[in-house]
Every structure is written in structure tokens, then in C-alpha cells.
């Protein structure tokens, strides 16, 4: 008897929920997860790293406004880049992936899920990026502007766990590149990281977004993050501000289509769209640095160039960097991390 009441109650809830569905779709940021309203049109699944949602929330409607993108709906998942990549490798079905760092796509190339040619375009498979930035409490009370400032006594730095987060890798590469002179003097770079990780990093959030959340909840003096993430927090009215250090690192966030995507054409069309003027503009508006030179020019005032911007190629590319620095148990940064936080 009673169980029928429960079922009835649950049903009532669903019916109530469905009743309101058509009125308002825009309220929630996951508005495009419209599995429910799919109908005959195509649906793409996107598995991405933790923070680009604010970008896709602009890009997807722009894509839907194009002839190819008309009626395409998206289901999206965001999380720690490494963790998301591992999930796709172990069977999470998807059409498009967007990770923070290239090795997370390389993992899927090695498992045969992504074509080896995925990065053979003008922009090497990277439709947008950012730079590593320093986020502080409003007014920058500790006056932190450079990588050296992070090592001031008593400063607590929030940066995610590099074994799951791509953001964490970028955050560590930025001072490493400066201190090692672009990898010329690895010892100096590692000595800096040893000090930073050993004495100033206490928390290990799993993703860039969880790091932001940890910082906003009041932990730490400094948050290392993507510039776009800092803009996102500021635009949300949080009491934080960011300073791009004079020497920092260019972040490239790659996108690829899965080989066994059930909707490969649409998926490819979507990825192609990311590189168009409209797509690039949408990214720029959301706080990500566009790769198209013209659009970049147009938003130049929003994204001031730092004095010196290192890139992953300066350090010899991701293959080398990942093997030497981040490979679990053997990479030098991995060892420092295990030593400090094991």
C-alpha cells in the first residue's frame, strides 16, 4: 500500500518537473544537456576538463545558430583533465573531448580511440588557450605579483594535484620555465618547485575548479590558475583579483573527436566551428585567449601580452616534459610531489 504512495509521490515530482521544462531552459548553466528535448536532431556528448564550461556555454549557442549546428544538443561532463581522460579510456562514451593538456589526448591516441592525425591542423588541435595567472584576495594584501613572491614566508598557495589536474601541470610549468631559463637549467627550476611544493602548497584539490572553490572558501593566500578561471571568478563578483606575472606560460587546451563517435560528422563540424571567427569570438568573450590572430587582435586589450611568455615547445614539447617531469614515480616533479605530500 505504502509503496504505491511513494511511487505516486515520485511520479508527481517527475510530472511536476517536466511540466516546467519548456518554459525556461536558460536558467541552469547545463542548459544544453538537453537529452530530454533531443527529438530527431543530433546529440553530441562532450567530455572536458574542469573549467571550460563558461566557454562552451557561449560557444554552443553560437554553433546552434549556424546551419551545421542547428538543432544539435550537447550533453557535457566537466572534471579533472587526467581523471576525465582516464574515464574515456576506460569506456565512458563520448564524441568530443577537450582536455587541459595534450598528454590526456595522447593517452586516447595510444588506446586507439583518437586518430593520430587529430592535431594536424593550422593550430595543432588547440582552438583556445590561456595563460597561467596568480589570483589573490581582493586588494592583493600580501602584494604578490611574481613567482618569487610565492616563496615569501608564510604564503600558502592553492594549486591542484598534478596527477589528476592539467591546470596543476601548467601552474608548475610556468615558474619552472622561468627559473630554468626555458629548461636550460632544470636544477634551478626543480629547486624552485621543491621549495614551492614543499613549503607553500598544502592542499591538493583534484581539478582546477576544485582549487578555485577551495580558494573561494577561504583557504590559502594565492591561487594559481588559468587566466580564464580568474576572470570567471571576478565576473561572478567573488572577492578576488588576478595578476599576470611578467613571466608566465601559454596554456594550450586541445580538442579532439573520438574515432568511434556515433555522430562523427557533427562532432567534426562542431570542432571545426571552434576555429571560426564566431567560435573564436565566443571563446574570447568567455575569457579564453583565442588562437585566430585577427580575433586575438580584436580582443588585445582584454588579454595583455606578458613580458615573456614561455610555451610548451620551448621546453621541448609535451612528450618530453611529461616523461621528464610528470611521469608518476619517475618524473622529477612527480618525485617532488610524492616527497612533499606522498
Amino acid at each position, binding site marked *: 500500500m505504502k*509503496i504505491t504512495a511513494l511511487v505516486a509521490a515520485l511520479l508527481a515530482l517527475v510530472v511536476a518537473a517536466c511540466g516546467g521544462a519548456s518554459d525556461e531552459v536558460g536558467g541552469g548553466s547545463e542548459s544544453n544537456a538537453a537529452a530530454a528535448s533531443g527529438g530527431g536532431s543530433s546529440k553530441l556528448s562532450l567530455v572536458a576538463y574542469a573549467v571550460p564550461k563558461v566557454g562552451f556555454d557561449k560557444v554552443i549557442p553560437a554553433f546552434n545558430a549556424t546551419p551545421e549546428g542547428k538543432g544539435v544538443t550537447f550533453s557535457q*561532463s566537466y*572534471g579533472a583533465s587526467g581523471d576525465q581522460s582516464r574515464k574515456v579510456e*576506460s569506456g565512458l562514451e563520448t564524441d568530443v573531448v577537450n582536455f587541459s593538456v595534450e598528454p590526456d589526448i595522447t593517452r586516447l591516441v595510444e588506446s586507439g580511440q583518437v586518430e593520430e592525425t587529430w592535431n594536424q591542423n593550422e593550430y595543432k588541435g588547440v582552438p583556445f588557450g590561456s595563460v597561467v595567472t596568480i589570483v589573490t584576495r581582493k586588494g592583493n594584501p600580501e602584494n604578490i605579483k611574481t613567482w618569487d613572491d610565492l616563496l615569501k614566508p608564510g604564503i600558502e598557495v592553492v594549486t591542484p594535484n598534478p596527477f589528476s589536474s592539467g591546470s596543476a601541470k601548467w601552474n608548475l610549468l610556468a615558474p619552472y620555465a622561468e627559473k630554468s631559463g626555458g629548461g636550460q637549467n632544470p636544477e634551478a627550476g626543480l629547486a624552485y618547485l621543491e621549495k614551492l611544493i614543499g613549503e607553500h602548497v598544502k592542499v591538493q584539490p583534484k581539478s582546477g*575548479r576544485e582549487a578555485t572553490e577551495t580558494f573561494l572558501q577561504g583557504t590559502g593566500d594565492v591561487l594559481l590558475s588559468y587566466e580564464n578561471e580568474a576572470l570567471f571568478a571576478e565576473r561572478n563578483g567573488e572577492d578576488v583579483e588576478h595578476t599576470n606575472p611578467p613571466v608566465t606560460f601559454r596554456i594550450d587546451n586541445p580538442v579532439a573527436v573520438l574515432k568511434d563517435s556515433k555522430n562523427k560528422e557533427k562532432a567534426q563540424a562542431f570542432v571545426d566551428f571552434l576555429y571560426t571567427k564566431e567560435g573564436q569570438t565566443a571563446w574570447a568573450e568567455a575569457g579564453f585567449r583565442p588562437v585566430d590572430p585577427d580575433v586575438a587582435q580584436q580582443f588585445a586589450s582584454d588579454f595583455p601580452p606578458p613580458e615573456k611568455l614561455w610555451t610548451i615547445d620551448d621546453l621541448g614539447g609535451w612528450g618530453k616534459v611529461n616523461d621528464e617531469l610528470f611521469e608518476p614515480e619517475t618524473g622529477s616533479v612527480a618525485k617532488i610531489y610524492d616527497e612533499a605530500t606522498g
Partner: protein
Amino acid sequence: MSTRIALRTAALGYLGVLVLVPLAMILYRTFEDGLVAFFQSVTTPAAISAISLSLTIVAIVVPLNVVFGLVTALALARGNFPGKGILQAVVDLPFAVSPVIVGVALILFWGNDGWLGGALPVIFSLPGMVLATVFVTLPFVVREVEPVLREIGTEQEEAASTLGASRWQTFWRITLPAIKVGVFYGVVLTVARSLGEFGALTVVAGGVAGESQTLTLLVHARYIDDHNTFGAYAASTVLMGLALVTLVLMALLERRREA
């Protein structure tokens, strides 16, 4: 007298600080912008999809637990076989296992590098979520039904069977009506636990909004990934409403069981 008042104040104070005030707080946060905002927040496509996925899981898990739970309870209450003690212990095992460990176990057993070598697409899809939920809810029906079975004994059943009733008839006409309340109680607990499962699902669910995101995962994703605190409160309130329904049902069944 005054001791009594002091004790009462202490007890109610503890409950207030720990349970009531936080709950009131979240209700306030949910509804401070009015009913409409709440309603919109819990009717986005992703929210609807999460609600229906949670209910789908419940709809699969409950029958599985009822059928296999009844079989197990009957075996435990009526059977006399070697290894019964072990079977008893295994039934209680899920109570003592952390949900996260449940997730780890499923990955190591069903996953790509697991015992079954990923032969079946379980992890990061619906079957994995169902398996995780069945694991954590497995004891409920058994533990609610088994004592009732012991209490009612076998005399009526044996009488029925001497009078020529088939085993099946005996079960439907004699056994089931007697244990009905126990089964319902087990089902209510199963439903509540299924809707609330989180730890195991974070490990084995894909968490794709609109596809493999349950209500609890939606709460977490909204809070962290979407930075949408209000949305998380709103979804929490839905879950809280379902929990209240459960409580009411539990209270009603308790009354009936005592009667």
C-alpha cells in the same frame, strides 16, 4: 525537575545545531528568491534528466533487491546448510564497506584492467551505477524480512502444503502476506539509500550531464563544476523532499508493524 529541563535543553540544542538549523538554512537559501527560481532550477534539462536517471536506477534496483532479497532471506531463515554463517556475514558486509571502496571494487572487477577485462561495458555506464547501488542497498530487504520469517515460523506453510497447495501457492497465499510489511519497509530503505548514493557513483559513473548524472552527482557538479551554489541548494532540496517522504513512510510502516 530542573535537571530534566537542562537535559532537554541540551538534547534539543544538540539536535538544533547539528540538524535543524542547517536544514532551515538550506531551505531559506533555496527559497529566498522565490518558488519560481527554485522551480526553474530543478527543471532544467540536466536536472530533469538527473531526476529521471535516479528514478530509473531505483526502478531497476528495487525489483532486483526484492526478488534476490526474498530468496536470500528465505534461505537464511529456513535453511540449514553448511556455510550459513558466512552467508549471513556476507549479507551484512555492504554496511561495513565504504561507498568509495564499493566503487573501487567494481572498477577492479568489471573495468578494463579488472578481472573481467572490461568484457562488458559496465563501468561509466548505467549497469555500473546499478551494480553500485545494488551493492550498497543489498542488506535492507533481507534484514527486514528475515526476522519476520523466523517469527511467523513454518507451521502455516506446512499446513498449507499438506492440504495440497503447491509451493508457489503457499508462498503467494501464506508467506508473502505475512512478510508484506517487512518487504515494504526494506523497499523504502532501499529507495532512500538508492536516491542518496554518492560515494560509489563518483567512482563508477561517467557524470555526463543529461546522461549519466544522478541527482546526487548533479548536486556535486553544480556546486563544484558549475559554481552554481543556488542550483546545488535547489537540487538538494528536491533530495531532501524525497528523504522526508521516506521518513513519513517509515513512520507509517512502523506504526503498522507495531499494530
